[in-house]
Structure formats: structure tokens, C-alpha cells
């Protein structure tokens, strides 16, 4: 890398709904804004766009997408934003001498097609979203078993239906939306399997306030549900996937009834013929970069794992590092937009572009909305999560937990029974190599921690997370050496 590092007033990591809302909130204040995202176009996973040469005229025409799509239309290609697509943030660290005044300052290492680059930022907004939380069971590493989100983004951004007969299994209502999108695209849905008993959805009636404030979401899900039923799709409740079978890829899956504690009963299993399986058991938030710089994160079983803590301006415990969207707790795109605006006000306030009173004015409506969103999200998180025991209860000894390093459940159990002093996720990692591979533990960290906490009869908080290491993503050696 040559010359002095570039500088920016506001660095936004991620280009999903929270980021776009924050960017539009800080635009017009004469600040330089840089947005970094791994994808090639803005929108995040929620509005994952096809490349420009592949415009599909029916792209995300559902009602739930409208507010976020409007936001995307107003800001995509905005000339006052320095867009960095196809770019990964490899590391984030505090900048002891930040550019400009009145800011805490951070430096980042960006890795893009042209190599690595350092960028100094007066403020940073981390809105890096989330990814599928994998449920591990025999056969889950077979090709064709994917996150439901993968099936959905292949459709949204590539117009590819992932299989001839797709089975969706999970606990999150998103799988109904994915099933509906598959049907609309001309695909076949083998079934939609929920871990909850059928009546669980009815318990939402105990929260009339939530039902009222988020009526659109509920009616949309209900409409989709009945559309699937009309199309003859089997929707099964109180069951979970116990095995995916096939050679060279999944060809069938076994579904078994489970009890409310997540225990599997061996009888009454159903076999589904399918060449793709979408897992939809919830999400993990991408809080690695925040944890890398020491921002406080607390474990939440049902809201996405290690959630970044923040104050009323969405500023984390690390000054100058703001957060918005799923990294603060799974709540969906509309909630992410609201948090993005509040974070934008917080950033303007911390940079001195607005005084506290002005910022309060800009944030107050959104704060009220945020409270409603939080109530909805908490309610949904509890309804949409499988029983805890399911996360660790379905694996066979030879089931792979860490895909990257091919570490099995048996290897974890052996290590834990031989080395009785192992109490933390990091110690387990050193011993077994779990979490040391290319995905850096993103897929296995929660399951590894759960196995450890169940075995040692202690909490996830005590077990801790894998240390969030630098670089946050693997960097090709040739790119490291030309810096």
C-alpha cells in the first residue's frame, strides 16, 4: 500500500436496510460517507439485487419489501457516497490520532479486487447483518442442504431455483415466505416443517399490542400460509429434520415428531423425497468486527447470539463505533431502517453537525417506533426459535460440527471427557481445531458453545465465544504481501 491512507467522516460497514437508512440520514451535512459491502450492489441480504445485466421484472414484488425498496431506490448510485462494493473489512481497530476533531476514530483494512487498503474513519457504523444459524444433524453437510436464506438469495439475485423438489425445515416463519417465492418461480415445495406445535402461532394473540403494531407482517404471513395450503403444500408442525440422505447430494430427508423440550420420538417418522433442503431455524448476527475492537456483546439465545450493546444513540461501548440492524438483535428490515436513522442522528451529534437537541428531534419518532419494534422482535424471537435442546440433540457421533476443519461431535465429546479442565470455547478450539477454518467459526461457534455448556452444565456466558481474531475474513497471501 502506498501513500497516506484515505480518510472518511462516516464509514458504514454493510449496505443493507440499516446502512442505507443511516446514509440517507447523514447525507446533506457535508460529510464524506463511505459504504463497504461484499456484494456488488446495495440492498443487503433482504434486498439482495441481481447484477445489472440480469434485471428481472418481478424482483421482490411482495408487500413486505416495499418500504426498504423505496429507500434503496432513493439512495442507490447516490453520487455523494463513496461506494466500495466487492470489498471486505478485514480488520477494524481504534485510531489513536483520528482525522478531524470531535471524533473517536477507527482505521480499517479493506480487501477488494485491487488488494488491501487502509482507510481512516472519524466514525464507523457497523451494520453487518446476520446469517443462518445451522442446525446440525446426520447428513447436514450433504450438497443440497442449505440455509433457507441461500435458497432465497439464489432466487432473488440469480433467478435460480435451488432444486427440483425443495423441503423447508425450521422454526422461523421466513420459511413460509421462501416456500411461496419458490412456488411463484415455478419450483416445487416438498413440504414446510415447523418445530413448534401448530398452536404456538396462536399465542401471539396474548400480545394484542404487538399484533396491532405489526399487523401487516402477520396478515402477510397468514396470506402466504393459506396460499401454500391452496397449492397443496404440506405444512407440518411439531417436527424436525433428523437426517438427510443421499450420495453426492441430498435425495431424501427424514422428519420426526418432537416434544416441546426438543426430544425426538423414534416413531411416526416421515420420509420426504427432495433434492434440496432449506434450514430455517433462526439466525446469528455478524458481530465479529465489534467484538474484535472490544465492544461489549451479550449472549441472546433467541435474538441471534452475541448482540452488540449500545446506548440510546446506537453507539457501542467503544466510542465512535455505532451499530444498527440485526447486530443489535434480530428484528427484521423495518426495524433495521429505524435503527439506521437513530444511528445516523447519533453520528451527526458525535461529529458536531447537530447539537443534542436537534439530534433528539430527528430521533424521537424513530425511538418510539423502535420500542414497538423491539416488543415485536422479542415476541417473534421466542415464537420462532426451536426448543434449546434441539441444537445439540440431533447429532450422531460422526456428525460434522465444524465444516471447515471437519471436526465431528465425537471429537468434541472425546476432547471434553479427556481434558476435564476445558471450560471455554477458546480452549476447546485450541484443542480440537473447531472454528479455526476459513469461516472462522461463524457457522459452528454457537453449537460448539452449546455442546460445551450442556456437557459442563454451565451457561453460554461462562463458555464465551471464540476470540474474534484479525483478519476478520481470510485474506489471500498475495494481497497481504503487496501491502
Amino acid at each position, binding site marked *: 500500500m502506498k501513500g497516506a491512507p484515505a480518510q472518511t467522516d462516516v464509514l458504514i460497514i454493510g449496505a443493507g436496510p440499516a446502512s442505507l437508512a443511516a446514509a440517507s440520514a447523514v447525507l446533506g451535512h457535508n460529510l464524506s460517507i463511505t459504504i463497504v459491502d461484499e456484494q456488488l450492489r446495495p440492498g443487503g441480504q433482504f434486498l439482495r439485487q441481481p447484477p445489472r445485466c440480469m434485471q428481472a421484472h418481478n424482483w421482490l414484488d411482495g408487500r413486505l419489501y416495499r418500504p426498504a425498496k423505496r429507500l434503496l431506490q432513493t439512495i442507490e448510485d447516490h453520487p455523494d457516497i463513496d461506494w466500495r462494493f466487492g470489498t471486505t473489512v478485514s480488520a477494524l481497530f481504534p485510531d489513536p490520532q483520528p482525522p478531524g476533531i470531535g471524533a473517536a476514530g477507527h482505521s480499517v483494512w479493506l480487501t477488494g479486487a485491487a488488494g488491501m487498503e487502509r482507510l481512516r474513519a472519524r466514525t464507523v457504523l457497523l451494520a453487518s447483518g446476520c446469517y443462518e444459524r445451522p442446525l446440525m444433524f446426520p447428513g447436514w453437510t450433504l450438497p443440497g442442504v442449505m440455509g433457507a436464506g441461500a435458497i432465497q438469495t439464489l432466487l432473488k439475485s440469480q433467478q435460480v431455483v*435451488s432444486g427440483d423438489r425443495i423441503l423447508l425445515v425450521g422454526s422461523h416463519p421466513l420459511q413460509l415466505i421462501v416456500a411461496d417465492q419458490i412456488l411463484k418461480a415455478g419450483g416445487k415445495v416438498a413440504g414446510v416443517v415447523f418445530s413448534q406445535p401448530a398452536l404456538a402461532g396462536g399465542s401471539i394473540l396474548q400480545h394484542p399490542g404487538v399484533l396491532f403494531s405489526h399487523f401487516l407482517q402477520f396478515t402477510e404471513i397468514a396470506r402466504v400460509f393459506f396460499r401454500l395450503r391452496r397449492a397443496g403444500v404440506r405444512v407440518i408442525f411439531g417436527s424436525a429434520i433428523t437426517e438427510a440422505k443421499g450420495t*453426492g447430494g441430498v435425495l431424501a430427508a427424514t422428519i420426526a415428531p418432537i416434544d416441546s423440550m426438543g426430544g425426538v420420538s423414534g416413531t411416526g417418522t416421515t420420509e420426504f423425497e427432495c433434492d434440496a433442503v432449506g434450514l430455517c431455524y433462526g439466525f446469528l448476527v455478524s458481530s465479529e468486527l465489534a467484538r474484535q475492537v472490544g465492544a461489549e456483546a451479550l449472549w441472546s439465545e433467541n435474538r441471534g447470539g452475541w448482540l452488540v450493546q449500545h446506548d440510546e444513540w446506537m453507539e457501542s461501548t467503544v466510542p465512535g463505533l455505532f451499530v444498527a440492524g440485526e447486530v443489535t438483535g434480530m428484528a427484521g428490515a423495518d426495524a433495521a431502517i429505524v435503527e439506521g436513522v437513530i444511528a445516523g442522528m447519533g453520528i451527526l451529534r458525535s461529529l458536531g453537525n447537530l447539537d443534542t437537541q436537534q439530534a433528539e428531534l430527528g430521533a424521537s419518532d424513530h425511538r418510539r417506533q423502535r420500542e414497538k419494534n423491539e416488543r415485536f422482535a422479542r415476541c417473534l424471537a421466542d415464537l420462532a426459535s426451536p426448543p434449546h435442546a434441539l441444537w445439540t440433540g440431533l447429532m450422531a457421533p460422526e456428525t460434522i460440527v465444524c465444516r471447515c476443519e471437519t471436526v465431528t461431535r465425537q471429537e468434541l465429546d472425546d476432547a471434553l471427557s479427556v481434558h476435564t479442565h476445558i471450560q471455554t470455547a477458546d480452549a476447546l478450539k485450541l484443542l480440537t481445531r473447531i472454528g479455526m477454518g476459513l469461516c472462522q467459526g*461463524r457457522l459452528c461457534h454457537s453449537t460448539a458453545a452449546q455442546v460445551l455448556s450442556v456437557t459442563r452444565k454451565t451457561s453460554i456466558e461462562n463458555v464465551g465465544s471464540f476470540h474474534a481474531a484479525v483478519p476478520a475474513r481470510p485474506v489471500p497471501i498475495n494481497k497481504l504481501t503487496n501491502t
Partner: protein
Amino acid sequence: MILAFRVEKVVEQRRTVTIHVNGRPLAAFEGETIAAAMLASGLRIFSYDRDGHPRGAFCNMGVCYECLVEVSGPRGSDKRRVRACQTQVEADLSVRMLGTATARP
């Protein structure tokens, strides 16, 4: 069984691009990722793990690295490992799958 397929009817006319996967030509469309092009051609296996078991794309968003493949340009130039789900096809791109179907000793 036809496996994954393209939703042709909604997409504007597209230019085709030929890539090579493990030495065999594979027709793809401009703007597709390597992963989408492979899946739509019935190729679900992206690599084999150390025990010789097949692996495929899992997240399609750059997180899991299960779609890692080796790519190179004309005559083996510019060889590198990329995530197939994050990399668009280009004319004359060669893709090689990592690992083999037999277990490592």
C-alpha cells in the same frame, strides 16, 4: 431428477458465457455467479472434505466458504481460490474443484 434450474421467463435476454469446470465446458449467463451456474447445470458438489465426502454451497452469501474453488484464466494464468457464490463467471474462466472423493490417508 432435474435439480436446480433457471427461472427463464422473467429475465431479459442475456449473453451466454462459457466457463470450464473440472475441464468440461459449462454454459452460463453473464452476471451469474460460478455457484449459480454450477447449480443450474446440476453440479451440486463443490469440493470433497478430508474424508472424501462431498460438500456444496451452504450460505450463498460469502460466510461459510463451503463453495471455495480454484479458478484460473486462459492457460492457467492468475490461479486463485475464490468463493464460487461471490464470484461472477467470465469467458474462459476455468474452475477446479478442491479435494478428491477418496479419503486423505
